[in-house]
């Protein structure tokens, strides 16, 4: 049982980061990025290509993160301009549809060029015992990375001037403009950050097990579920929801069944929308 829960936490940390990446973009700009899972896959492919070329793992990982952040910025500066010109529900709908298109473009290109592509970062060494449970080193590395990133984000949003600026744009965009903050610029930076997070998820995910080129849609689905359950726009909520759902996932997969587990997770999202639309920690 303990092993299952710890596995759940490892999974949950990855889910959490996924959710944070997606919820950030929604909180700031009202855009649901349905291409998010594909961006993770893109990062994975870039890293694996670099590693195949003999680039040391750490540098390749950095390259992957830069690549996903770069793609995110490109997306923000091009397609998203049209989206931000709309307001409210229109904006979210257009963002949803356009990013769906982007998901197909990226996914299709990657699958067609690297049909057997994927990434698996294996960490050698004996399993380490945590609370009496032997955990694979890869899982531990992944979790530590995820926690470090979470802590860095907390620091960023809570204590830095720019981070405060980001929060201000989320809470009152006009107020932010009045104190001299440029919401467009902030949105681009945050989009880049969410892209970087996608790259990091690629790394941590692939430390746990192989991340294949087909995983895009599934990852987007997880990200969406976590975001909705946590509360659209709430970073803390997404992280919490990720952890919760990760544990639920492994518990259910272990004791009930694989397909039912998917239904349970999807049901959690639907239930949240129907009963408590603002999610766990949303406003």
């Amino acid at each position: 049982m303990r092993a299952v829960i710890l596995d759940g936490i490892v999974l949950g940390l990855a889910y959490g980061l996924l959710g944070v990446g997606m919820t950030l973009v929604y909180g700031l700009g009202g855009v649901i990025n349905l291409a998010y899972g594909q961006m993770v896959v893109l990062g994975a492919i870039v890293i694996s290509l670099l590693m195949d070329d003999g680039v040391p793992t750490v540098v390749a990982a950095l390259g992957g993160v830069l690549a996903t952040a770069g793609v995110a910025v490109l997306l923000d500066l091009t397609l998203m301009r049209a989206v931000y010109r709309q307001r409210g529900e229109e904006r979210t709908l257009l963002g949803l549809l356009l990013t769906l298109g982007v998901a197909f473009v990226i996914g299709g290109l990657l699958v067609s060029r690297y049909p057997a592509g994927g990434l698996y970062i294996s960490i050698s060494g004996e399993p380490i015992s945590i609370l009496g449970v032997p955990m694979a080193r890869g899982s531990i590395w992944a979790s530590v990375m995820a926690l470090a990133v979470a802590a860095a984000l907390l620091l960023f949003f809570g204590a830095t001037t720019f981070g405060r600026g980001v929060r201000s744009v989320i809470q009152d965009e006009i107020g932010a403009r009045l104190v001299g903050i440029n919401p467009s610029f902030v949105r681009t930076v945050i989009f880049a950050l969410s892209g970087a997070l996608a790259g990091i998820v690629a790394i941590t995910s692939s430390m746990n097990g192989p991340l294949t080129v087909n995983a895009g849609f599934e990852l987007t689905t997880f990200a969406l579920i976590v975001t909705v359950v946590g509360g659209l726009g709430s970073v803390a909520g997404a992280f919490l929801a990720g952890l919760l759902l990760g544990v639920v996932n492994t518990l259910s997969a272990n004791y009930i069944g694989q397909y039912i587990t998917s239904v349970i997770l999807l049901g959690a999202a639907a239930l949240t929308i129907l009963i408590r639309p603002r999610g766990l920690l949303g406003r």
Partner: protein
Amino acid sequence: MERTESGPRRGARLAGSAGRALLPIVAAAAILAVLPSIWFEDSPYTTSLAVRALVFGAYGIGFNLIFGCTNQLFLCVGALAGIGGYSTAIFVDRTSLPIWVGIAVGTASAAIVGGLLSWIAVRRSLGIIFTGIVTLVFSLAFANLLLGRRDLTGSETGLLVTGAPAGLADDQVGAYYLFAGVVVGFLVIFRVLQLSHVGWAFRGLRDDEVAAELAGVDVARYRIYAATVGSAMIGLAGALYAYSSGFINPATYAFDFVDVRVLVLVAFGGLGTLLGPVIGAGVLAFVDEQLSARLELREVLYGVFVIAIFLFLRRGVVATVVDLFNRVVAYLRARPALRPSRE
């Protein structure tokens, strides 16, 4: 002094306007009728291509009714079709009742589920985004259900659907004519709705929901109504397709197979227009055919289509082209140089 219209004249006038209203459908029906002789060349491959196009056209008309007319983003077209297909197949298999009973059951099941989803969305005041997410979640959950209940559905291995009347199954021309009839029937239903008070309500509702509500339009009722009828259409097409293809599995009704293409073809043709879905289905079939060798590139192209359509051609290619055509005609009519000289 008023002149009351005489009976025969009134009848002729009504017939005339009915004729005009149904003209596009009659034209489409005519084209569909002669298509086999012109194009198929007795090739089963071409026939099955045309059948698939018609099936998606039927899906599209249903989706058009739900999304195009009442702004309900139902990302569960595949699931609704799957409910039609699977419930029909399982029902007939378990009860050995005639096929047409099974098909009725399948259609009704899809209609009930669709209506229910709409009712829930209305009761909980879900906006278009949350409706989209909930229906997407439903789609995925349904796919998982199909995969999970191996005893009922055969999971990935699928179900063999036997018992189709001769001439219908295995991509024969009979199937083509069946679906052509279904599509024309759906078009008639859509047109009748469009021209009735229901169509008025739809137009008002799409334009400004609050204003429509204040003007006395029961938005909720019309939404549920549209969702039920549209879902019935989708379910019926899904059930019929199960029989004409003879084999179904979860992939037949998957989100990334059905919903994406339906979205593209309806948006392409024009959300809310009569012939949009049919024209879109035709174009999509053509594109699919051209790219049959490179399936992944097909996905990329769908993505590009979606982006291009929702960025630039929001009203749909057909509507934009028709608009352009009308403007050219108006321009030509107004130019004095083209007016006949009066010498």
